[in-house]
């Protein structure tokens, strides 16, 4: 168990190292930030000074080593655009993103899991058909379209929620719905598939024949067994919500990390891009580490393996 943890941690660190390389390369690939950062009035000297100031004139290998070394000490450099520490900008954005991803996840679970369960229990029924339609639609509809439609519907035509922005609880409604719609569709589909499998398994049949109550069988035994792959998937899904929420964040003017990254990439703000992507990646890896632990807690077989 402890060894497993250590091994996972070691793997995670290795993954992080690979990540830093990819991130560094991606950032440099986008090109020179100087024209974006310096006003057109700036002289060549000013430009050169900027490059020197941020070490952009060194060779890439040296830049990478410096980046790694600084990152290891928690220093991601200073944003080219805002001239403030890159990590401060990222830190500001993490909260909103985490809370949005969290609430969307919660919504998705609250919708997806019961729907998937119900569909699996009544396989082939109306609800099952609805679920498969819901799942397909959820995966075939672009997020920004859902977001804009929700704004039109629930903020303008029926002004129930604020259209966008970040602040009060009400502001969570529409972005959560938008993200949750996408996430819940895949969760519903997965839950259904796993529940169908589990409900076919011998032990469920055994419990039926032993006369245990239907609820206890479905919710306690079948769902718990089916939840193992679902939990693993939720971990991956959470990653998507963390960084994939860019579109939603933009539509709802949510000051999250997705937008931070998009802006940073578009403005070649390497320090912020690197810090932000690395932060999401670390969050993602942490969540997945936690997921492994949850799976281990849920599945005694894992503990002995």
């Amino acid at each position, binding site marked *: *168990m*402890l*060894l*497993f943890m*250590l091994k996972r941690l070691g793997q995670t660190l290795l993954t992080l190292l690979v990540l830093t390389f990819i991130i560094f390369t991606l950032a440099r690939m986008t090109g020179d930030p100087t024209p974006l950062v310096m006003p057109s009035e700036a002289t060549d000297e000013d430009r050169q000074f900027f490059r020197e100031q941020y070490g952009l004139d060194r060779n890439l290998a040296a830049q990478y080593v410096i980046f790694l070394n600084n990152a290891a000490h928690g220093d991601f450099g200073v944003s080219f655009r805002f001239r403030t520490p890159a990590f401060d900008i990222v830190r500001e954005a993490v909260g909103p993103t985490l809370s949005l991803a969290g609430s969307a996840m919660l919504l998705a679970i609250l919708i997806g899991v019961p729907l998937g369960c119900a569909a699996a229990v009544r396989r082939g029924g109306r609800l099952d058909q609805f679920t498969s339609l819901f799942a397909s639609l959820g995966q075939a509809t672009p997020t920004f379209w859902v977001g804009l439609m929700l704004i039109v519907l629930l903020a303008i035509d029926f002004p129930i929620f604020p259209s966008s922005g970040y602040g009060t609880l009400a502001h969570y409604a529409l972005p959560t719905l938008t993200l949750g719609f996408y996430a819940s569709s895949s969760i519903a589909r997965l839950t259904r598939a796993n529940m169908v499998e589990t409900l076919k398994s011998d032990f469920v049949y055994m419990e039926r024949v032993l006369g245990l109550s239907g609820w206890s069988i479905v919710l306690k035994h079948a769902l718990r067994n089916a939840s193992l792959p679902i939990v693993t998937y939720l971990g991956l899904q959470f990653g998507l919500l963390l960084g994939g929420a860019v579109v939603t964040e933009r539509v709802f003017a949510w000051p999250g990390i997705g937008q931070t990254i998009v802006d940073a990439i578009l403005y070649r703000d390497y320090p912020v891009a690197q810090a932000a992507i690395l932060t999401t990646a670390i969050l993602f890896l942490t969540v997945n580490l936690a997921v492994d632990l949850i799976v281990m807690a849920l599945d005694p077989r894992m503990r002995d*393996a």
Partner: protein
Amino acid sequence: MTEGATITATGLRKEFTLSQRSLFRKPPRVVAVDDVSFTVAPGTTLGLVGESGSGKTTVARMLLKLETPTSGSLTLNGHDVLGSQTPEQARTFRRTVQAVFQDPYSALSPRLRADRIVGEPLEAQGVEHAAIDARVAELFDQVGLGREVRHRYPHEFSGGQRQRIAIARALSTNPKMLVLDEPVSALDVSVRAQILALLRSMQERLGLTYVFIGHDLAIVRYLSSMVGVMYFGRMVEIGAASDVLRQPLHPYSRRLVAVASGATRLGDHRITGDLPSPLKPPSGCTFRTRCVYADERCRAEIPRLRVVGSGQQVACHHVEAIRDGVKPETGPLGGDA
């Protein structure tokens, strides 16, 4: 008639390292097979019986070189097969030794047609297509399936038929030896009989050497010329089939045979006592925790195989006394050394 193969195992031992649970302790190891030796003569069958988990499959896998023994040696027709081998030697080994496993469902790739499955070992040897086709058709006839069915997929066959296909594949390269790990346990009684009859006739016709693993003593006896009884990783008794199965001497074999023969009434031969844990094997004789004859010597000293009476070898300190009925039943001996 091809000449069968001689296989000799000496002092085979296999340890498995389990995954570590604590950082501060060495990873636990289980000894799955310990000090197992035997020789199988060409054209004969060695039957292996014993409790579930006693290491039969592990022995089989070592014979097949699917598992490398921790120690011990293995020779095929007098040539060592464990050390480094030239590719030619490796190929010869593959061609000489083939296997049939217990589960007819997982033994055949579900997405390949039966004829491709059977022909695959030949294909791997670079035999040309026409020759493969002819040989495959012949094999289907030989195992009693009929050559018409050879283009079907595995799922279109019943369990017994699949096992025939598995046997046909094992025979395709004209091996001299087959390792059969419970080849009929998953089959129906009636189909079992068909397969066993097939195996026997194959042996007679082709002079094959078999190592046969089974639970059903009657079946083991049907095929085997020699029988080894395993308990907890060790060979506790080995000898001619007629001797071992008719007049077992080791206390474990005695019980096994008694129960399986059906000659006794239900419940007469219950084995009591603690099941030994592979993580913490008992000292001395591994059977002492369940043996009614166990005494302090059994706790202290590991019994070695030795020849007793008519020629079977038994690993028990008290064989003679037990055989002669002079050893009192003192009950199993629990606890550690």
